């Protein structure tokens, strides 16, 4: 069997590792700027699909299908992002006789509409956040929306029907703010998704984000997993995920699992998917949306259940029956936490930091898993999401997992681009995080007022840094005798410059 991975970066490498372990051949696709990317090196085959902008490469359904045909691939794994939740792509694969490793095009389309998904949840008897069930098209006058808003009650959220990741979403505290919010949301939704329809949802007070991973085979078996909590978000983007959630009791876990499974059955869901919920302060949960694909944060579930979700995606797609023990999937073994390491500068409002990674040392040892898409020399292109690695720490309990992550972060070294590592070093020492006292608004609230650097340096650090810089320059110019000046690439070219740095 041969699988084309219609993605790049760490998730493409993750899927190819599963292929290699299963004895399947993997086919990489790449854009022009990704020719030397790790997923191209890792694959058994690699094919160019177009220029660097995603619209001309990783989002080109026609080229992907054509490459899959040419390569004689049997199946396509979409990863996450790009075309992973694109019904047309799933359909195109099916039409081309390719196994699409995910749910059917119709289910993707159904859950892609946030209002249709809410209705499906209601049919399955799952509570949804109070709101309107029918979308408002671009032409619905604002006063009609205002009437519905009064019903829903303030504060509320104006959300894009085709939305996701906080795009086309606006918070509204009172009726006066509504018209402007509707205008803004419609505009953003129209440009981002080509669909300006919106709907209204009550805004819960400081909810936690808790989601249920499910696997569903082609024979009607659905297995829900222990929950993941993803409340540590920056501008609606998850940055830390963990399993299990401190806020979920065993009873609540079973309740959420049961309802998630019934929702999946209701819509005829197959393969891997995630039902995202909000959990309020009183322990009530509400359906938020369903992601019809593998999640970025799937490793934390794998670490506490021992189940390889990607291998199961492939086995399900080729018709195998789920033989997992449901109890095992629902019973967390220890605790796992994932830190998303982005090429961003946390000390500059998390500005993306594209460039070339000139040096890399990854952590290892007990309880550490590093799912990376880069090596020393890899480029972080400006064209795509800047996630470079997912660092996951496992421990018998949450404090042990945190301790291992701190240790691993102290070993991690990435040079050439700025990363969010300093941010995580800070976050993991915060009392609110250690004690689990957080909700989806926690991080943005803290960051709003924060100005200091995330990894402050002590005087001793600064002194060591100054001495190290001096010694390094001293070595680079070969001033030191006795073989201590093992000069790196280009040292001699650089010598002149460093000489000039001396007083």
């Amino acid at each position, binding site marked *: 069997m041969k699988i084309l991975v219609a993605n790049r970066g760490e998730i493409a490498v993750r899927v190819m590792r599963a292929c290699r372990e299963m004895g399947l051949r993997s086919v990489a696709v790449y854009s022009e700027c990704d020719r030397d990317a790790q997923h191209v090196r890792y694959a058994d085959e690699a094919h160019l699909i177009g220029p660097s902008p995603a619209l001309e490469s990783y989002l080109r359904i026609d080229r992907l299908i054509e490459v899959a045909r040419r390569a004689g691939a049997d199946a396509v794994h979409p990863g996450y992002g790009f075309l992973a939740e694109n019904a047309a792509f799933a359909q195109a694969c099916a039409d081309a006789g390719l196994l699409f490793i995910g749910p059917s095009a119709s289910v993707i389309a159904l859950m892609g509409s946030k209002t249709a998904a809410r209705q499906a949840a209601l049919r399955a008897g799952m509570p949804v956040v109070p709101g309107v069930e029918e979308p408002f098209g671009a032409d619905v006058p604002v006063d009609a929306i205002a009437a519905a808003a009064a019903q829903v009650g303030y504060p509320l959220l104006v959300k894009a029907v085709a939305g996701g990741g906080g795009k086309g979403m606006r918070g509204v505290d009172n009726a006066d703010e509504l018209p402007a919010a509707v205008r803004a949301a419609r505009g953003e939704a129209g440009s981002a998704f080509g669909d300006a329809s919106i709907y209204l949802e009550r805004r819960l007070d400081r909810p936690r984000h808790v989601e249920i991973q499910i696997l569903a085979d082609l024979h009607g078996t659905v297995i829900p997993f222990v929950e993941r909590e993803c409340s540590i978000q920056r*501008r609606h983007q998850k940055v830390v995920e963990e399993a299990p959630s401190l806020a979920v009791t065993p009873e609540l876990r079973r309740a959420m699992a049961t309802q998630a499974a019934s929702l999946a059955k209701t819509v005829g869901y197959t393969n891997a998917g995630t039902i995202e919920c909000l959990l309020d302060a009183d322990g009530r949960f509400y359906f938020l949306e369903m992601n019809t694909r593998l999640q970025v944060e799937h490793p934390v579930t794998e670490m506490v259940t021992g189940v390889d979700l990607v291998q199961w995606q492939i086995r399900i797609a080729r018709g195998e029956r789920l033989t997992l023990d449901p109890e095992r999937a629902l019973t967390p073994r220890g605790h796992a936490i994932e830190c998303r390491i982005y090429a961003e500068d946390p000390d500059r409002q*998390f500005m993306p930091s594209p460039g070339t990674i*000139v040096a890399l040392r990854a952590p290892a040892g007990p309880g550490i898993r590093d799912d990376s898409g880069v090596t020393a020399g890899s480029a972080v292109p400006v064209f795509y999401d800047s996630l470079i690695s997912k660092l996951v720490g496992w421990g018998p309990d949450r404090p042990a997992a945190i301790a291992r992550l701190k240790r691993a972060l102290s070993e991690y070294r990435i040079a050439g681009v700025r990363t969010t590592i300093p941010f995580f070093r800070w976050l993991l020492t915060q009392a609110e995080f250690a004690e689990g006292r957080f909700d989806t608004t926690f991080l943005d609230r803290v960051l709003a007022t924060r100005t200091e650097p995330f*990894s402050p340096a002590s005087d001793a650090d600064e*002194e060591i840094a*100054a001495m*190290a810089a001096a010694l390094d320059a001293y070595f680079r110019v070969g001033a030191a005798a006795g073989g201590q000046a093992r000069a790196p690439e280009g040292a001699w070219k650089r010598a002149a410059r460093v000489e000039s740095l*001396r007083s």
Partner: protein
Amino acid sequence: MSTRFEIEVNGRSRTVTVERGDPAAAGRFLVNIDGRQRVVDVRRGLTGALSILFPDDGGASYDVAVVSSGRGEVTVHLPSTSLRAAFNGRRARQAGTPGSDGASGEQRIVAPMPGRVVRVLVAPGDEVVPRQPLVVVEAMKMENELSASRNGRVKDVQASEGMPVEAGKLLVIVG
């Protein structure tokens, strides 16, 4: 023979001199920092990472990577943090201050990478305060706020919503 460096870290300039220590002990150096003499034992690995020991300071051990950022500036990676160091009083950029920052004078806000302007939040004449967002540029699937670093008044706005921009494109000037 000793070599002298002026090195600035986090806004503070330090004078560091390096000379070989006991010739019998390879890797031994005498490093003087701001007048304080320290004996250091140093090795440089294949990848360039330094192992620095302080035999006279309880054998304290530091595994340090020094990576050039160009323009006489290096980034020093320690287990606990990373620091920029600049030679010869070239000012090391501080963490938390935009690249467009200078101690004074006008602020030229430029696009850090190719992308699309999604929001323009100021108009010419507006008074702005430090960290106030001026423009939002969408790039790498993220909306990135470009902010002012100091008080000032907006002199010119060359960005409009939806406008695609190349890296380095001037967007706003704050005087």
